[in-house]
């Protein structure tokens, strides 16, 4: 199960990373959906899917009709408004893995008869989109030590040392190719809700006042390894101690590499990944 499932996603695939030629499970958490018409439903729920491919009428895995879904697309309840469906994606959709990476999976859940009522609307969820990332191979521009164990998850906790590497040799932004004054500006997601952040600079809402990066976060300067690579090592709990007065649990860190003084947006590395920690502290 992806860590994202624990922290608020309404639909996800397990295992993660996924092998699309093997059995996978699509999970839907009705409680997290925008439309709540199916919350607490004791009726069977069915998948209605159209991406990467919608099977034609007569195909055994066709959606059926809106008034009578195909029983082959029936989800199983895991209780507490959690529903799942097992499939081998490339076989189910009769497509290639490339189709799944480029189009993802689009679906919604509905009752067998999705008509619902005039007052509450149709008995369905909103459209649910599953994006599936192609596996990463070869050199990476941004990576960590210890490495990721899942797509965006570390095995370590925020009490452990985390090192972020930036390989400028793989930079496609010409402005940065000969620069060395890099800062790894980090913000931390914390608290039980997983929706709050602590930071010295909000990397998601940079303003003109933030251009003097070197003066605001000197502690986040990256070390030049003199081979085109730069690194920044830190202990998240220690780095954010002054911002975390109540010692709330840090669940993830998001970072952006930028120069010590931002003159234009080209002084910032485009990517801004977020890494999740394990559930232990």
């Amino acid at each position, binding site marked *: 199960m992806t860590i994202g499932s624990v922290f608020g996603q309404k639909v996800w695939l397990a295992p993660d990373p996924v092998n699309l030629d093997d059995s996978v499970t699509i999970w839907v958490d009705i409680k997290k959906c925008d439309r709540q018409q199916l919350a607490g439903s004791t009726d069977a729920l069915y998948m209605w899917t159209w991406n990467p491919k919608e099977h034609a009428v007569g195909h055994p895995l066709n959606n059926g009709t809106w008034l009578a879904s195909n029983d082959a697309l029936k989800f199983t309840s895991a209780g507490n408004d959690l529903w799942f469906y097992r499939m081998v994606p490339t076989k189910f959709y009769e497509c290639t893995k490339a189709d799944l990476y480029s189009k993802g999976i689009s679906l919604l859940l509905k009752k067998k008869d999705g008509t619902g009522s005039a007052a509450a609307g149709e008995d369905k969820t909103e459209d649910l989109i599953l994006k599936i990332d192609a596996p990463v191979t070869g050199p990476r521009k941004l990576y960590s*030590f*210890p*490495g990721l*164990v899942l797509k965006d998850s570390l*095995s*370590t*906790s925020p*009490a*452990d*040392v985390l*090192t972020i590497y930036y390989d400028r040799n793989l930079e496609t932004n010409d402005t940065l190719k000969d620069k060395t004054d890099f800062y790894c500006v980090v913000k931390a997601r914390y608290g039980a809700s997983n929706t709050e952040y602590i930071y010295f600079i909000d990397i998601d809402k940079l303003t003109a006042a933030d251009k003097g990066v070197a003066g605001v976060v000197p502690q986040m300067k990256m070390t030049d390894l003199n081979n085109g690579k730069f690194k920044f*090592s*830190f*202990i998240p709990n*220690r780095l954010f101690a002054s911002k975390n007065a109540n010692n709330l649990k840090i669940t993830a860190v998001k970072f952006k590499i930028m120069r010590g003084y931002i003159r234009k947006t080209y002084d910032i590395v485009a990517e801004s990944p977020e890494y999740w920690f*394990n*559930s*232990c502290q």
Partner: protein
Amino acid sequence: MRNKLIYTMALALLVVGFQGCKPEPKVLGPKVSQIDGIAGNWVLSKVDQIDVNVQLAFVESDTLLDVSDVVLDASVGTPMEINFDKGKSTFSVTSGTGSDMINFSAGTWNFDNNEYPSYLIFDKGLSTEKNFKMIHPVRPQDEYLIVNVNKMCGNKRTVSYHLWFTRKN
């Protein structure tokens, strides 16, 4: 006849020569005690982090990173120290940077085997017992005590550290 005499003399010289090369027998000194070796004060001087999830490593840096600069950041404080009392089998920790790696302030210590120790055991037999694998022997002449610390989440090892303590006596 003359040739036979020459051969005999050459053979005799060869035998004498070989005997001259025979190494002198060496006598080993008394066996060193690692209990004596660990006794005293040690200060944390180096920390290596080990990525336990790397499945294919070509060079050491794929799996091991020296993180001393971060853990032992001098601006945060002085490094932790630990004292091993030989007579009482007790230890005490002077808190400092890196203390959270051990998470002990005092207790008892043992080796798993006093002659050939592989593990250093803190609080043996108690609910707080922890075993630290020794990376290197700790004889009286050894400058470092190096132990492996595994961080766990449930039953899963998440990351390891090698803690290098330097003798402070």
